[in-house]
């Protein structure tokens, strides 16, 4: 058993871009091994929330905890508390991120994409990094593409490499920011397949997604966000079959 209650949690998270308030008081606690899908209309702040978690966006106010330890506390754009640089780096590395637009490094081959951060950040030897990279690339089913540049891959294959690249850092939490939204419909399945596999292996996952089927099948908990607020959350069964919030009802009507 883990010696912490929540692997990741946020308290009273606020984020504004100038006068625009994107996140308003987001409270969410994630247990180890939990798969949470965040759904909601566009502009709800779902992506911003994920990006705030791993510091791609600076939050305006709120607290972020990793393994129950305070990672960051800010109030009104001022940092009140922040973990020590070393601890901070280690905590950030607990999170792997997969982007909507893959963001693979185009000048590196598939293998190099999956190796580079292991060598630079985890300070592994090339041999060790390559060994793990080849293992993980095999898990996402792209062993025959090791020396290929990303431009020669389909969108689905690129996203699988991106997942492999994040996994190679051996994170405990995976953040997925609409991983299938920029894919052709026939390529969505292969990426979701890899994600389901990960969920089965017990990876803690936070997915912003529009794939309701995936959310229903895989998620332990579904969170509905709109206008920067969490309006409803619950098991997929509760949320999809008996939504109570009016906005959630309307949203689900329009997508299902």
């Amino acid at each position: 058993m883990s010696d912490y209650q929540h692997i990741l949690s946020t308290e009273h998270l606020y984020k504004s871009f100038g006068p625009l308030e994107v996140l308003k008081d987001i409270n969410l606690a994630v247990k180890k091994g939990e798969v949470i899908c965040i759904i909601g209309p566009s502009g709800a702040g779902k992506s911003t929330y994920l990006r705030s978690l791993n510091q791609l966006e600076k939050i305006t106010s709120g607290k972020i905890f990793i393994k129950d330890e305070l990672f960051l506390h800010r109030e009104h754009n001022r940092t009140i508390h922040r973990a020590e640089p070393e601890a901070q780096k280690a905590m950030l590395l607990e999170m792997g991120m997969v982007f909507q637009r893959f963001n693979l490094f185009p000048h590196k081959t598939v293998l190099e994409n999956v190796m580079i951060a292991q060598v630079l950040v985890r300070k592994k030897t090339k041999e060790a990094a390559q060994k793990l990279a080849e293992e993980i690339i095999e898990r996402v089913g792209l062993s025959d593409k090791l020396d290929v540049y990303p431009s020669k891959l389909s969108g689905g294959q690129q996203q699988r490499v991106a997942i492999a690249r994040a996994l190679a850092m051996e994170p405990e939490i995976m953040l997925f920011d609409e991983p299938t939204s920029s894919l052709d419909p026939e390529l969505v399945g292969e990426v979701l397949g890899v994600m389901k596999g990960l969920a089965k292996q017990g990876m803690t996952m936070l997915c912003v997604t529009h794939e309701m089927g995936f959310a229903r099948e895989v998620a332990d908990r579904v969170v509905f966000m709109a206008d920067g607020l969490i309006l409803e959350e619950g098991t997929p069964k509760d949320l999809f079959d008996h939504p109570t919030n009016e906005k959630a009802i309307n949203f689900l009507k329009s997508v299902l």
Partner: protein
Amino acid sequence: MSRFKKLVDIKNWKRSSKTVAIVVLATLALVFLLSAINVSKQDMLDQASDSVKQIIEDEKTSSRKSLTITYNNLGVVSYTSFTTSGANAIRESYVGFAGSIYGADEGAGKFAGQMVNYTYRMLGTGENLLHGVKLTLLLTTLSMAIGAVMSVFLALGKISENKLISRLSSAYIFFFRGTPLLIQMFVIYFSVPGIFGFSWRSLFSAGDPEAVYKGAFIAALIAFSLNAAAYCAEIVRAAIQSIDKGQNEAAKALGMSYGQMMRTIVIPQSIRRMIPPLCNEFVMMIKDVSLVFAISLMDITTISKTIMTSEGNYLVFVPALLIYLVITAILTFIFGKIEKRLSIYE
């Protein structure tokens, strides 16, 4: 397959590569052949008229030298002239090509002779290193190399989040792009030694007859490098900023530091985008080198102007233009190759 193996595996070369290789080899063979059978200086002397030979004989016994012998060997073609000054001056010239000697005092021979002579002078053959084409190539290559390295730091400085560094970099770029290169060179050549109490030539030993030119070259090199850095910095900055922000985010999400991200992700991708504008900058600078006339150095343009003034031959600009075109063509070819090599992943 390794690059070397590919190179050796001639059978599998592309057809176009084979054609290029044949043309290049044939040209080289022809040049080699023509150089081998080119007319020697002695042959030219033998060809001279009796009156010239008489003067050469006279000079052996007298201390007075009146005959000027010019021998310009460009490899495949050579040119010789015999001139004396004063009344009844002798002017005789010859062009040697493919083992034969032709008179070059009138008509097509005269034109060919002049072209050989002018080209020879502009190439700076036989002169010191800081003369003609050699000066142009040396100054542009060195100052572009130094400027390019400096420009990376200036560009990173300009986009830095540190306000002081950013402002200093911007001010540097603003100053060097906003003032004429000629005045920048004057400041470095005249004002800097004036203020700090030294002279550029004193950087070299007093006995060095070329100290003046070497000193001027150092001053020009500094001015050109500082100037190139400012122009290249804008190219580098634009290229860096043109890289998709998603690349930065992916690198950050993987825990890379700013330096690691720039070094391994952003700059390598941006280099390919810098190549065309950098080539442009390089080509412009080759021509800007002519400004060094103002600090006593002689580049291609300056030499052609000097010949024009002293000999009044407006055809002198033909070889000058051709030399520039050849340099630019070679440079464009090289940069094109680099760009292609850097594009393999696209």
